[in-house]
């Protein structure tokens, strides 16, 4: 499902990623761990083309990315199959929870407003927030916002989900709510890559672990062996 081969990226003469290769089979959860600045988030953002890279290649959900700038239409097709959840949630501030979720299915997939809404309400159910459908993001707690953000990404029915430190901006109680949702997704067989520095969470959710250090892969393997 995910293959990264010899990925290299520099930013202003600094090597951010160096010869990174990994594989994420269908239905598995890969945790990416490592200290701050080790290139975890950059690697994740390369996977859906939010960042470009200098050499190597990526194959994800049936799409492939090469070094250098990516053509916009190729990225749009890829991103329909690859969802992403951000550390800071990034919910659309002007839309209610349900509209946040329904926007992309409506605009990108061409669903009718009613279809998109139904899909959104089901997902809100799944993350336990159906009663907050009409709430604006700013009125929700951080944990609630992140769960809406997960529902928003899931609404596109992606084949791969990317999580960029999804619990780092949350206090422990809220982080637990979000972790439960992610663990439940893992149990349902969703292919995922989770960047985190919470080893306990990685052990709970992931089957494989990739540890980065200074842009290189330090270790990788089954979660039981690494952590």
């Amino acid at each position, binding site marked *: 499902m995910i293959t990264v081969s010899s990925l290299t990226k520099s930013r202003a003469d600094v090597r951010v990623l160096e010869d990174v290769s990994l594989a994420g089979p269908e239905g598995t959860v890969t945790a990416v761990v490592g200290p701050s600045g080790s290139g975890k988030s950059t690697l994740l953002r390369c996977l859906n083309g939010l960042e470009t890279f200098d050499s190597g290649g990526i194959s994800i959900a049936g799409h492939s990315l090469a070094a250098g700038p990516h053509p*916009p239409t190729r*990225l749009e097709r890829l991103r329909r199959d690859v969802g992403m959840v951000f550390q800071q949630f990034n919910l659309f501030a002007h839309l209610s929870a349900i509209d946040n979720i329904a926007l992309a299915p409506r*605009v990108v997939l061409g669903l009718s407003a009613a279809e998109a809404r139904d899909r959104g309400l089901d997902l809100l159910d799944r993350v336990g927030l159906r009663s907050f459908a009409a709430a*604006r993001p700013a009125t929700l707690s951080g944990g609630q916002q992140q769960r809406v953000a997960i529902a928003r990404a899931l609404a596109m029915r992606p084949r791969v989900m990317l999580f960029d430190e999804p619990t780092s901006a*949350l206090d422990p109680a809220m982080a637990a709510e979000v972790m439960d949702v992610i663990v439940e997704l893992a149990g349902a067989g969703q292919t995922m890559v989770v960047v985190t520095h919470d080893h306990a969470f990685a052990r709970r959710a992931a089957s494989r672990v990739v540890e980065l250090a200074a842009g290189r892969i330090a270790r990788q393997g089954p979660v039981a062996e690494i952590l």
Partner: protein
Amino acid sequence: MRFLRNAGSLAGRVTGLFSGLCTGIVAGGLLAVPVGPARAAELDDVVARGELVWAADQEGGGPHVFPDPTDARRMTGFEVELATLLAEELGVKPRFQQGQWDRLPLLLGRTADCVINGIELTPERHRDYFCSRPYFGYSLQLLTRRESPIDDFEKLASPGPAGRWRVGVLTGSAAESVMRSRPDLEVDVIGYDGTIDSLEQVSGGVLDAAVMDDCIFTFYADRFSRLKTVGRPFAGGFYTVLTGRDTPRLSAAIDMALGRLIADGRLKSLYDRWDLAGRQQMLMLRDATEIPPARRRSVWELGRDTLPLLLRAAGMTVLLSCLSFPLAVCIGLAVAVGRMYGPPLIRPLLTGYVEVLRGTPLMLQLYAIFFLLPKIGLALPALVAAVVGLALNYSAYEAEIYRAGLKAVPPGQFEASLALGLSKWQALRHVLVPQAVRIVMPPVTSDFIALFKDTSVCSAITVIELTKRYSVLALSTGRIVELAIVTALLYLAMSWPLAMLSRWFEGQLERPAVGGGTREG
């Protein structure tokens, strides 16, 4: 006259506020500061000062007063020479004071001792100022293009092929009042601030005809070879030197000096030199008292006669604002998006668009659209030109506001949109622009109020909105203060709801529903 002087100053301040332009405010501020002598300069002051300050508008053009073609810093014209002769008679030197033609009388007692600039002797002027004996006889002449179907003044009594005839006149001139006093004619009378403007517009096909003092057209006939006179001059009157009612001795001295110039033939030889022979003989037996002064209207009559006109002009102000601002917002938004997200090639062009429109005065842009575009075959009606001019000018400001608004949307919003598979344009349409629009609501509303007041600049291209209507009515009725108060109230009645709206939007913004707010806590 003391009353009138204060009145003029108040009018200046009020107009300054209305215009909303820095210049207006500065001018108003200057008028509020007593710069001239504490009282109007009487004859002894003029003699002691050694200067007779005479006011005229060089924009009015030849043959009266105009910049010397060989040296633009110098003024020339038959009235320049007349002023010199009059000053000599008083034993002083002449000094020229520039002013806008229809407001020259307001300078009396403040920065000018007298007005010499083709001022027609009318009952209203006779009521409000001291009028000297006539120094010049003018006739009104109808002018049109050579190929025009108007070959006789009576043709104006029935509609033309395109409906009512459009006839240009100088605002505040006798030509204007004569044409406006003829409801029997199928004519829309359009007032211009400069004499030549209406000739340009007839030549360019915007107007069907123009009416002006015949000597003006004679002077410019070479420049407007496509124009012809229609029939004989059809009405006429006299030019007078205006002085203030509170300077009787100066007024009398100027009147007598003029008498001496007429009697000993110096005025005649002056006119001979300017090719204006025949003007002076008509004056020999006349003096100003042949024209009786107009009656001053009661407040009730004033309201009855002016309120409907002021209300209609206020309607024009609203119409201009409400047509041009939405356009400005749409263009501005498109320019802002283009500058930030458009193809790299067009970005510098859009930057240029913004800088040119922000960096040049609105007045100049309106002039260009209304007076210069007809020269390349694009003659826009005044209202359309005004709306287009306001919309373009304000679009530059709106573009900058929206650019700031788009920058204020957290970058995570754009990334989140892209990550969901939205294209750049879909992200703009559904996520960035809706948020930017909410963020910039207060400055945009405040710009609407600014545009609302800037519509007064459109009077430069013959659109009569509230400020212009006030200015015309104040001068023709002499009720400067009363009408200023009514006009100010009308502006307030219109801008107050806008200010409320602006405050409401700000209240909406402070509510947590809108804004960046994706952070914890």
